[in-house]
């Protein structure tokens, strides 16, 4: 087992992502409570935890989609909390993200979805962007004919693969995966996990994923962190998680109803 706070004892090199004392509340509900987490360059960290424990809020806070009440978010050692305009755009260019539901743009064909980030940068013609998009689609196992389809014509697994192709198209330094296997059958889930591992390795990116799918976490993680009560309560390698000695982690990975994590259920 590693430390409680999320690996700050690994002093060098500078963490790719460093969260310190991150707090976020919605009205009276505290979602993130002084959360600390470090993700090192080239590392793949998976944050596990139950529904409503703040996993998505953490990712959205890093991306600037939500504004935390307090704390620090550093990317490559640079404080990004409060950045605006072109400074924020510059930081966002380091990121790619695979959304839980794909979040593909309905109004655009698949290839334009994949090439969206490239076209938005303005550094590439539509013709070249399409070539790159089709190449990225091929890397996630989809043929060029899929590029002309509308996202609504794709199955859930195909939408996830297109989302993955879009996430890696700009060759980002950091990729976020939000529940990458949710809603997929186990085989397709494993296909997506393999693709994530392969794509992250190919791009050479740092990956931060959130999931409650333990099979997925074991496959794509270098380290796994568990979030509970708005804090990271345990972090360690995949090999360490089965002997974490943490009752919260044990209950979660074995999916037991009994344990220190209590669900708010009305008893009949």
């Amino acid at each position, binding site marked *: 087992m590693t430390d409680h706070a999320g690996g700050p004892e690994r002093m060098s090199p500078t963490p790719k992502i460093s969260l310190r004392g991150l707090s976020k509340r919605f009205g009276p509900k505290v979602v993130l409570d002084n959360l600390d987490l470090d993700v090192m360059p080239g590392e793949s960290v998976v944050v596990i935890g139950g529904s409503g424990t703040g996993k998505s809020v953490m990712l959205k806070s890093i*991306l600037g*989609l939500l504004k935390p009440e307090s704390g620090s978010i550093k990317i490559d050692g640079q404080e990004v909390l409060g950045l605006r305009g072109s400074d924020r*755009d510059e930081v966002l260019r380091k990121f*790619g993200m695979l*959304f839980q539901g794909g*979040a593909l*743009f*309905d109004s655009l064909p698949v290839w334009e979805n994949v090439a*969206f*980030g490239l076209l938005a940068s303005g550094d590439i013609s539509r013709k070249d962007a399409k070539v790159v998009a089709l190449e990225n689609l091929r890397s996630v196992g989809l043929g060029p004919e899929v590029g002309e389809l509308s996202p609504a014509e794709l199955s859930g697994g195909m939408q996830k693969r297109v989302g993955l192709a879009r996430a890696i198209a700009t060759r980002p330094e950091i990729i976020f995966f939000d529940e990458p296997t949710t809603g997929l059958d186990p085989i397709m889930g494993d296909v997506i996990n393999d693709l994530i591992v392969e794509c992250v390795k190919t791009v050479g990116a740092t990956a931060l994923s959130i999931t409650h799918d333990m099979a997925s976490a074991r496959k794509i993680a270098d380290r796994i962190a568990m979030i509970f009560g708005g804090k990271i309560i345990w972090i360690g390698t995949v090999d360490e998680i089965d002997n974490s000695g943490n009752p919260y982690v044990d209950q979660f990975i074995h999916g037991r109803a009994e344990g220190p994590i209590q669900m708010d259920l009305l008893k009949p």
Partner: protein
Amino acid sequence: MNFVAMVGRLFLGFLGTLGQIGTFTGTALSHCMTPPLYCGIIGRQMLNIGYFSLPVVGMTALFTGMVLALQIYIGSSRFDAEVAVATIVVIGITRELGPVLAGLMVAGRVSASMAAELGTMRVTEQIDALTTLSTNPFKYLVAPRLIAATVVLPLLVAVADTIGVFGGYIIGTEKLGFNSATYIKNTLDFMEPIDVISGLVKAAAFGFIIALMGCYHGYNSQGGAQGVGRATTNAVVSASVLILIANFIITELFFTR
């Protein structure tokens, strides 16, 4: 005490909403005035708002012009002023009925469509995805709709004015027995540029309101399908009410000073 507290809460909520709309409008306007502008999206929105609204706006204008001619004839015949039919039809259509009815019809069609589209994009995280792809949602989604609606509504109202006046002409000449040349002469002689200009200015303001309300409610929708439905309803209702309020204010500015 509870009643006072409730009124206070409602009032504070109202002020809060006004502040949010003000901030949203300011942000949207700043993106309308700074490059880059997505001209392709503006063109598609102009087509959607203007061209595809032509049938419903045209039909509304045609029948309104016809009814107006009939009603004015019946009313003016009570004091032997039937000759005023053509003049009152053209003034009524260009100053008021053309822009207001076109605005309300487009509000029903376009505000709802914008709120539903942006609301769905919000709840399916497509707006968040835009941000992660270094694209400002205001620049990509809101600004093109505001620009397109503000530009295209005056064009649409110009067409509606023409069709409405033509509706009055059909009734005037085919049913009420006016001479065709006399009807056209009365229409043109007593129409002043300000009649048309004020209507087109109103149309531009209504276009802005329609797009603003559609985008505001869609962009801020939450709560899944029910939230999108609520956003759609709120967009149409608020756009319609604001059109009527703006109509009064613009009329005040143009004609009572």
